[in-house]
């Protein structure tokens, strides 16, 4: 039986692009003041890769470009979603970024510089005070 590498190629490129996208989106959102700039670049790159995928007859390469392109388009959307996470305190704010600093300074702000997720699960629900204590007490 002949081996078809296309599934493996897609899996590897999908995994890597999700991983790199996941890390980069958080970083880019944290250091950027005007979010439309990285979003516009990601959309342009994503569309360019999809156009390249349409133009290239080589199937493995078209697959890589097609998958990479849509993940970049998704990342543009994730930049916006990451900003919403910061506002809700679901991801740590960067006080050196004026946009984040403004969120932290809002009255009744839920934004925080703490990463609430940075610990191991304990197997039960915790209240907001304990959630903070669990990540700061050690």
């Amino acid at each position: 039986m002949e081996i078809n590498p296309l599934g493996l190629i897609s899996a590897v490129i999908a995994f890597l692009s999700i991983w790199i996208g996941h890390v980069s989106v958080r970083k880019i959102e944290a250091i950027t003041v005007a979010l439309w700039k990285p979003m516009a670049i990601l959309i342009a790159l994503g569309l360019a890769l999809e156009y390249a995928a349409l133009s290239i007859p080589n199937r493995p390469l078209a697959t890589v470009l097609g998958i990479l392109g849509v993940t970049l388009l998704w990342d543009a959307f994730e930049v916006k979603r990451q900003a919403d996470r910061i506002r809700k305190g679901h991801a740590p704010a960067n006080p050196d970024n004026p946009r984040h600093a403004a969120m932290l300074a809002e009255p009744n702000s839920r934004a925080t510089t703490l990463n609430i997720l940075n610990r191991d699960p304990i197997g039960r629900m915790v209240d907001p005070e304990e959630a903070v204590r669990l990540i700061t007490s050690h």
Partner: protein
Amino acid sequence: MNAFGLIVGIATLLIIGLGFPLVIQGERRFGYLWWPYMLGIGVLIIGVSLFVPVDWLSVVIGAIGATFVWGSTELKEQAIRAEVGWFPFNANKIKPPFEAIIQKWKAPHL
């Protein structure tokens, strides 16, 4: 024009999208300690894709496998999201086989 790359790209995006409910429901019902099983299932699915002669189907199966592998790295954070109340918490989870051994391993997070 060769629509194959664009179509499998869109299909992959939809499959990755299924990873969200997979992680949320998987963690809620089973708990994050199932991560080695989820990782194993993903690798197995990707292995199966190698033996699928139809190109588009091989890609779809490969993308499903990648979604399971990625999902296994998201379970731990999802468990904490439930513990802090951002998602519903279920105290009666189905425990994984070899739970005591898995607890000694560091759950992956990327």
